[in-house]
């Protein structure tokens, strides 16, 4: 065994079954390359400015905002699983809790990193805290995401210090023990913050009176998209979690969680998705018949431009909404692992499509009567920057899986050690 492999082995829990060092490095290699490419592309944007992107004055938001909104929704599994386990006492979901924390942390930190590239003056980011406009949904998003990222880091540290080498430091053991007492509080705070920022992300577009395609009426200061984004995020969070765990099982060749956990996550996703589809249908009906006509816009203003026809609306509601909800809820289909994962994938695609429609389609559609319909194709720098975030997520999860007790089944020695 080479010296590198020996050092690597010392950081892995004793008796834990992991791939060889060489195989692990081979797995990491393409992701590290993609991460480096992403860092290079982001560096170009920092150095030369946002002219490196294909965004423009009309497409002021582009692929980055669309994918930021999407991965933040996918990362909702973190706060929602914590909420289910610690607040609603659904302890049978505990086996996926650590995965949920890592997925949430990578999704949120990745989104924040891309947002820093996406703004023209990133060094002025603190201005939002110093001169906050309390009427702006973006202020609410900035405050809640920053605070929740801190909560996720605090939730990740107790997992991190369970590493075989870090556990040898007595103060870390004490910290971990104390931190566990704090985790339910963090779960509660995280759920509160997350409900707000998931909603505010929906509100970002819902409040745009000048964009009748996105503008919605609502309750108090919040447009209906505020509530729809919360619902869709907590519906897709468990689905994305299922897909991540299933991918980890496939790649490692090990059974990591019991199938009952999949079924429970699927059922939760399905019920929430069904409620979301119903709410979305009512919202769309009210918007097309009341809100939009009042602003002088009829359905032909939205659905007569290829490729944004009403097919998008149908796809997001039926094959990517109602169908996965049925697959999740009906016991006959929910018994099949393949169908369950298919439903999870469809749910994720549905949320991706919804975020795409809210961000990209809103900007593509003309508002002035003589405006042209616009197209936008992201530049390689935009794609590569986001590729870097994807690679970052895979690398962090891979390292966490290898060196930390992510699942009970692959914990190794750690499962026998307890301060109590």
């Amino acid at each position, binding site marked *: 065994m080479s010296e590198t492999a020996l050092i690597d082995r010392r950081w892995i829990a004793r008796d834990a079954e992991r791939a060889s060092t060489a195989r692990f490095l081979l797995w990491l290699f393409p992701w590290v390359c993609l991460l480096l490419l992403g860092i290079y592309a982001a560096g170009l944007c920092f150095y030369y400015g946002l002219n490196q992107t294909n965004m423009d004055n009309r497409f002021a938001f582009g692929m980055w905002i669309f994918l930021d909104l999407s991965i933040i929704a996918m990362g909702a599994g973190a706060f929602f699983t914590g909420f289910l386990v610690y607040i609603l006492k659904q302890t049978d979901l505990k086996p996926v809790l650590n995965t949920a924390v890592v997925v949430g942390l990578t999704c949120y930190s990745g989104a924040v990193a891309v947002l820093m590239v996406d703004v023209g003056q990133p060094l*002025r980011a603190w201005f939002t805290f110093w001169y906050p406009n309390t009427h702006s949904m973006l202020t609410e998003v900035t405050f809640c995401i920053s605070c929740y990222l801190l909560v996720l880091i605090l939730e990740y540290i107790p997992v991190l210090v369970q590493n075989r080498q870090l556990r040898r430091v007595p103060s870390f053991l004490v910290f971990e023990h104390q931190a566990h007492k704090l985790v339910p509080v963090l779960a509660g705070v995280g759920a509160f913050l997350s409900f707000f920022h998931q909603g505010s992300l929906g509100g970002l577009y819902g409040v*745009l009176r000048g964009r009748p395609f996105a503008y919605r009426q609502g309750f108090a200061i919040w447009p209906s998209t505020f509530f729809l984004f919360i619902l869709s995020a907590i519906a897709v969070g468990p689905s994305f979690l299922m897909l991540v765990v299933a991918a980890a099982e496939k790649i490692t060749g090990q059974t990591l969680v019991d199938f009952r956990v999949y079924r429970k996550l699927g059922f939760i996703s399905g019920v929430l998705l069904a409620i979301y589809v119903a709410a979305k249908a009512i919202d769309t009906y009210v918007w097309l018949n009341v809100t939009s006509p009042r602003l002088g816009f009829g359905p032909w203003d939205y659905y007569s431009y290829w490729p944004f026809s009403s097919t998008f609306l149908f796809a997001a509601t039926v094959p990517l909404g109602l169908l996965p909800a049925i697959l999740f809820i009906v016991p006959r289909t929910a018994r099949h692992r393949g169908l369950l994962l298919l439903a999870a994938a469809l749910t994720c695609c549905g949320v991706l499509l919804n975020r795409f429609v809210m961000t990209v389609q809103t900007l593509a559609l003309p508002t002035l009567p003589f405006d042209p319909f616009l197209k936008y194709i992201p530049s390689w720098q935009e794609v590569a920057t986001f590729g870097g975030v994807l690679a970052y997520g895979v690398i962090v999860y891979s390292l966490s899986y290898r060196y930390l007790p992510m699942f009970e089944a692959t914990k190794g020695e750690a499962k026998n050690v307890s301060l109590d």
Partner: protein
Amino acid sequence: MSARYGMVIDLDRCTGCGACMIACASENNVPPAAPRATWRTGITPMLVHTLSNGKEGVDRREAFIPIACMQCEHETPCVSVCPQQAVELDKSTGIVMQMPQRCLGCRYCMTACPYHARYFNWWDPQWPPGMEHSLNPGVSVRMRGVVEKCNMCHARYHDALQKAAAAGKKKIDLADYVPACVEACPTGAIAFGNLADPNDPVTMAAKSPDAFRLLESIGTEPKIHYKTTQAWIRALADRNSGRPTEAQHV
């Protein structure tokens, strides 16, 4: 009583010469377009669009419509969305002000603007050697990565305020405050005035049967009014009249 500065643009007089665009850029230190800039990435606080009735041959009709910030009075879309109060509606003038020094460059205000009258500085501002001497010393140059827009030549407003103060007056004389585009228009198509004054010729023109505003239905109360006697332009400007036709940019 505070003023409400606004404009009435007579589309029947507009020849689409673009003098207003040039005057605006020159007055407000808008840098020459970067080599890779397009009409979608350039900075044109005043932009003249070409309208057509969509027909061909002898039936074809064309007109020009200058678009600048509409200085929305009600639920100003860009003001409420800015996360760091870099945009505000000046209560004393009705002008929507932009503070580039505080702008984060998030471009949320651009997304919110239904008139597409906000512009992002995609490139560093650069002038060819020697041309920097032509810069207006009364207007700050904006840096890369911030948003800007028409502020109705605010430097000229300040000059008028100073002149009034020197003369011991509390109010400006409207003859001292004329935005660059109004001054440059060779046909006098753009009229500028105080919409809060019922006797101002601009206020009366804004109330004439030929006058209209763009996207009035969304309820933001824009302070830029248009005027035309041509029915097809009115029909085109009215969203409820049917499908949009094409437009080009000067």
